């Protein structure tokens, strides 16, 4: 398929596909995917909660632990740092809706300047996601430093797997956002592309709400 033909398909052959509901196929698929992801994270969260308090050796999330050799381990979860990363992820959702609004309302009055700068908002969202991942990398390395590895105990196994799965989802989201940013820089996203941004936004917000659940269930409830 040559590029010329590809362009032709886009420019002069915009046949509109009929759909029963008038909705776009991709959006329906993304919502079904999000529904499925609910079960994925439900399985991970259930396992974490089932194994909570069952580890035979420390370190533990909320309690100090003295090893048989007399070594003392502090409670390992670092609430201030995680609160900061939670804040960053929550704000990234705000940037994401700004990006979508900028693309949807391109050229409309009141959407000039920063408000209409979809590149800025897409970049900020991706940046916030990257900062969140940076916090997670910091958290993981400092845990390993303090004696908690994925192999240490049940808490380590279930904690790293659950938050790691979430982190992997954020990583995919960041790549997705950067792809959209690249398209925006190359040819500019127009209101016709809103749907493409919308489904990315749905995924991104979903990853955010999963973190809202994780933050409360894993970090705050002792």
């Amino acid at each position, binding site marked *: 398929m040559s590029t010329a033909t590809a362009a032709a398909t886009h420019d002069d052959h915009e046949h509109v596909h009929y759909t029963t509901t008038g909705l776009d196929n991709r959006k329906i698929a993304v919502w079904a995917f999000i529904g499925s992801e609910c079960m994925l994270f439900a399985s991970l969260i*259930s396992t974490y909660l*089932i194994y909570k308090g069952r580890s035979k050796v420390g370190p533990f999330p909320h309690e100090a632990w003295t090893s048989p050799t007399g070594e003392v381990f502090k409670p390992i979860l670092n609430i201030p740092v995680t*609160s900061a990363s939670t804040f960053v992820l929550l704000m990234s959702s705000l940037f994401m809706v700004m990006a979508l609004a900028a693309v949807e309302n391109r050229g409309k009055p009141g959407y000039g300047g920063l408000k209409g700068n979809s590149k800025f908002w897409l970049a900020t969202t991706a940046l916030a996601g990257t900062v969140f991942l940076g916090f997670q990398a910091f958290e993981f390395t400092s845990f390993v430093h303090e004696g908690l590895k994925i192999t240490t105990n049940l808490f380590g196994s279930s904690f790293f797997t659950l938050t790691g799965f979430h982190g992997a989802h954020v990583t995919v989201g960041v790549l997705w956002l950067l792809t959209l940013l690249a398209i925006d820089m190359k040819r500019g996203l127009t209101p016709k592309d809103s749907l493409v941004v919308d489904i990315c936004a749905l995924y991104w917000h979903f990853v955010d709400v999963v973190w*809202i659940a994780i933050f409360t269930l894993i970090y705050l*409830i002792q």
Partner: protein
Amino acid sequence: MSDHASHAGHEVHEHPDWKQYKWVALILFVITIIEVWAYYIPAFVASSAFVPILLVMSAVKFAIVVAYYMHLKYDNRLFVALFVGPLFIAMFTITALLLLFGKL
């Protein structure tokens, strides 16, 4: 991603506006502050109200992100069904598993 530059019958749904977006962000921020603050009050953490109150606050955050940022409140009811159905089954499964393992 770019293979469908256009799509059929762009559904007309009003999105929440900028002002609402900022309000939502503020509420999310405030609830998070309260949650973390509550975490540092030992008497409250020890009380039996701690877990339910925290769960409610987190549920509120969850709900407003889904309703406004994912604009489910303004979108087609089909999407509500596609999300709420599986969410219900997921929450049922978590609850049932925790009961079976004696965690509730």
